[in-house]
């Protein structure tokens, strides 16, 4: 057994788990944050994407013990004290989700994508960047639309702030 301590959505949390426990299972079962999902066994689908120390990571591809000491943001903590993060709001406005199962992972990947690219996202880049996430419901059309809209909105607010 191992003790894992993380800063989760702004709060320090710890728990014991078997050494072999993947981070995603630790998040779901020990932390009780079930918004992070498991959609495959081969790190292909991206339903489990979280932010670890500010970067998007498939939480099925790392052991919980390896993440110990890190800062973790899950879909539950993305909006902070707000209602919804601009990416979450854009997904709602543009119908970027249907069954909702892949959605948390797609949203977490999208936030990271926007952060990395600044304002310079176009459709081709978004589609290429989404390669690590599988959605079976939307055909990606509205996911792409939502990410581009959120990117435009976030760039505009950044510029306004500067």
């Amino acid at each position: 057994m191992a003790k894992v301590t993380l800063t989760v959505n702004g709060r320090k949390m710890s728990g014991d788990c078997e050494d072999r426990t993947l981070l995603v299972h630790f998040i779901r079962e020990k932390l009780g944050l079930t918004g992070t999902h498991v959609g495959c066994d081969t790190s292909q689908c991206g339903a489990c994407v979280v932010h670890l120390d500010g970067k998007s990571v498939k939480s099925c591809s790392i052991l919980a013990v390896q993440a110990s000491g890190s800062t973790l943001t899950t879909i539950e903590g993305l909006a902070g004290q707000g209602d919804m993060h601009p990416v979450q709001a854009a997904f709602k406005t543009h119908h970027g989700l249907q069954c909702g199962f892949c959605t948390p992972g797609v949203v977490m990947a999208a936030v990271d994508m926007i952060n990395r690219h600044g304002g310079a996202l176009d459709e081709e880049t978004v589609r290429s960047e989404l390669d690590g996430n599988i959605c079976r419901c939307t055909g990606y059309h509205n996911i792409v639309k939502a990410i581009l809209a959120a990117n435009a909105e976030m760039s505009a607010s950044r510029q306004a702030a500067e």
Partner: protein
Amino acid sequence: MGIEGIGARVARKEDKRFLTGKGRYTDDMVVPGMKYAFFIRSPHAYAKLISIDANAALEMPGVIAVLDGKQLQADGIGNLICGWMIHSKDGSPMNMGPWRPLAVDTVRYVGDAVAVVIADTLGEARDAAEAVAVEYETLDAVTEAVDALKPGAPQVHDNAPGNLIFDWALGNPEAEVDAAISASAHVTEIEIHNNRLSPNPMEPRAALGIYDSAEDHYTCYTTSQNPHVARLVMSAFYNVAPENKLRVIAPDVGGGFGSKIYIYPEEIVCLWASKKTGVPVKWTADRTEAFMTDAHGRDHISKVKMAFDADHRITALKVDTIANLGAYMSLFSSAVPTYLYATLLSGQYAIPAINANVRTVYTNTVPVDAYRGAGRPEATYLLERTMETAARELGLSPAELRRINFIRSFPYQTPVIMNYDAGDYEASLNAAMDAADWAGFAARRTEAEGRGKKRGIGMSCYIEACGIAPSAAVGSLGAGVGLWESAEMRGNAGGTIEGVAGSPSHGQGHQTTFAPLVADPLRRGLDHGPIAPTATPQGHKGMGDPGSRSGAVGMSAIVKALDKVEAKAKKIAAHLMEADESDIVIEGGELKVAGTDKSLPWFQVALAAYTAHNLPAGMEPGLKEGAFYDPANFTFPAGCYICEVEIDPETGTTKIVQFVAADDFGNIINPMIVEGQVHGGIAQGVGQALLEGVHYDKDTGQLLTASFMDYAMPRADDLPSFKLSHQNTPCPSNPLGIKGCGEAGAIGSPPALMDALPHAIGPNHLTTPAPPPEGGEELNAPPRGGRPRMRPIIIARPPSARRPACLPAERRRNTSPAA
């Protein structure tokens, strides 16, 4: 309130919980004392099950029980069944072999469950499963339907000689169709392989069985599109528990596409194991288990003859299909290649004589049942590939041949049961051609040639039958259930309206789509609480959401229940305002006496219904009404899809440069949701045509495509943005005029894409009646440098088994924790 009207693009009520991590799916459920199930599955495609020795496993940490099929059988749990009876041409009933939730003496596919381990943690259950010694005596297996019909093939079930489940026919007598073909000016003959697919909803199946010994009552949380039917079937056929002692709950369901309609062994076993062990038992499939056990779709081989007169009118169609149903008959498996397939073989065309023959076959593969479209994609693919081939042979444009043959007056009785009630096929064809700038294609092709690329354009005109019902009709065709829907609506004393619809949702957004039925200002303009799609089928009934039926059938039931609530409110209002009931109208949230200034707000009438101080003589208090709705006919969505591709002869890769969909869905409640359904359907259809395919090793029966590394799912960079439009003709068969939109994308898209390919590179093998080759080698050569953005295809059977197992680094962009 106005923004919630019918036809408005209302954002979904469901979204916030999904976007903030507050969705509640079956695997999210945790109950006190819950333990974990791990299924031990056959590694062999076909074998005698000799013995199971669990002694060592039972000694391992955390293990509570190891249960097998003999124990399950001894407790009286029944076999799984197929609920739709089909008779062969000779009148004999279909040959249904026994399907035990846990195998007793024989395993018939890789993944067939033989035992279950229950332990404190999933890890312990999985470890213990390794220690269970299962002895098998392997047998020769058969995986392909054509092989299974050959003399001397391995026999999958004793009661199905030659592996034939049924040999069924529909339409005109064969001799009559043969004569029409002989007398024709031209005959197009092709062979079509409709490849086997895995539905792959992103949420794997799961079940949580909870037995309460104090109440002698069972609760099952499950990933179901069909919780009512699950409760009924588990009670009536599998003897899990009487209906009044069995609660089935489908919480948020993460997609299904058909694969979560059926009742699988795992939910039965979890319920039974919970009683047996005294603890709640949860099972969640991993993705490999999903590939190995979720019902697959399609897998047809067909020979087609389409005959034309000298004016290029179709005179006859003859189809001979072999459908692979896998190792066991799944719940609706027999209906898919028969009444959901052959009945659509007239397509959008006036065909005077049609003969369809369908043989269904057992093989040592995962059971095959409905997958998005279910039979209708197979019919459309067959017809539209044939039309494309015929147009090329006859020297006509694809549009011209279709225009010559369109049905133009309604109702239209086809030779294959269906009576089309409304449609305007040419409107969709014209809209699609305009949107795709078909006329400008030649210039685009020339431009592409200048860049060394080959361009092609293809079209597909589909029709489907949705809103599956009416009960009497499907009953006469062999269905074991009725296909109505129900709803219960309640006017609350405070003036709001809420209710429960029989139709469940597995991601489509029913809660949002249903709301305008109450809130639309032009209809009622009333405040509403939730109109919940069914999650827990206690106290009301429904038949699930398959076949795009939640709109046409489910919403019609809501309307009917609301009409009853409204009728009672009018009676009360007339009484209170001393007016004639027939003079009461509802407008803007008020009940008014027409032609006067007298009115009462809805909430006062609703309150009066519950105070019951002053009701018409003899009226019961309250404002709650239920309704069942059984439609008069199927509905017939139709449309035209156009796909334009660009192929790089250097690398063999295909890029979809545009995809256009022009659909007739009848009246639309929420266009945003409807478009989302079409987008997702097209992606699945493109997946079928370009990327996806279940493959078995022919010699060993091993499933070769059992992970997302072997089975190529469509990703964002495989697809373009889509151009959509609607040319709606209201459906005359239900009160809302809805036709249904859930499956069209998956039905219409594969042939449009597959027609574009020969247009780009010249006629392919589908022009000859030869079986699909492994194919098109000159264009299937591995890409020279760079990763393949899309599988090079020029073949009918997508080569996903050959997709590189090690994907390029880009695939793992956001996977690396170390980065």
